[in-house]
């Protein structure tokens, strides 16, 4: 089988904010009521992360476990762990009413790094989010100009952002243009 490649093959935009297209990772969407402990326990045991609460995202190394909605969770893992995680989740979920979908090739993942204020400024220009008060450890699904996207801050000075793979070039151009030019904050 051919090797997975990211949408923009690792493209980087340098500037006040560095925008980097990250290497492919495993992304698994799990749909099912997150109030059902069978589902959250399966997610926690496969990921090794505690299931976060509303709009939360847990992070450790390359692993992420995000609350995407009352009945949706997103698991991001190193690409090599994809098959094991899919079979592990399916097995652990057992008869729980849930769906496991491999979304690895459906999305693009970017990392933005830079001075914290410049970074918040860049996102604030393209998304209707109050970036002055956006905390670390929270995931925000929102609109990036004309496309859907989601982002979170693993720590101050870093933003990770996902969008659909088909609009990766748009997102990259949008962010790299927002990163230069007049500051809002």
């Amino acid at each position: 089988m051919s090797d997975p490649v990211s949408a923009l093959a690792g493209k980087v935009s340098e500037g006040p904010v560095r925008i980097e297209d990250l290497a492919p990772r495993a992304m698994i969407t799990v749909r099912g009521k997150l109030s059902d402990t069978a589902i959250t326990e399966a997610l926690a045991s496969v990921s090794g992360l505690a299931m976060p609460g509303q709009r939360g995202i847990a992070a450790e190394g390359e692993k992420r476990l995000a609350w995407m909605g009352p009945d949706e969770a997103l698991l991001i893992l190193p690409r090599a762990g994809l098959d094991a995680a899919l079979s592990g989740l399916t097995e652990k979920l057992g008869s729980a009413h849930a769906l496991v979908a491999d979304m690895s090739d459906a999305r693009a993942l970017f990392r933005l790094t830079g001075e914290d204020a410049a970074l918040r400024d860049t996102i604030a220009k393209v998304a209707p989010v109050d970036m002055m008060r956006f905390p670390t450890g929270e995931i925000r699904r929102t609109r990036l100009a004309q496309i859907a996207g989601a982002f979170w801050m693993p720590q101050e000075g870093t933003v990770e952002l996902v969008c659909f793979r088909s609009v990766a070039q748009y997102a990259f151009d949008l962010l790299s243009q927002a990163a230069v030019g007049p500051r809002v904050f």
Partner: protein
Amino acid sequence: MLILTCPCCGVTAEETEFHGGGEAHLTREGPGSDDAALEGYLFHRENPRGVHFERWRHVYGCGKWFHAARDTATLEWFGFYPAQTSEPPEALLEQIRQKRPGWRWRDFA
């Protein structure tokens, strides 16, 4: 600009992150209903100046449908409540009664 709070994910955001779904609490008339009821379901909508109940979807966010009550004249939101109900919660109705004495919307007052 309207600013909504999604009751499903708790996010407060402006209206471009959402999508309006029209009037709330419609009865879906189908096969077996009479012509007048079907006509009403298909074509007749409230268009008040004042209290109004609407459906909204958090389309760029969690993707969930929910209900909202607002004043169409002042753009004030009275509240947001889950989609899984056929009528507004009593606490919300009481709050609207206090803010807009004598209001009426369809069968609610």
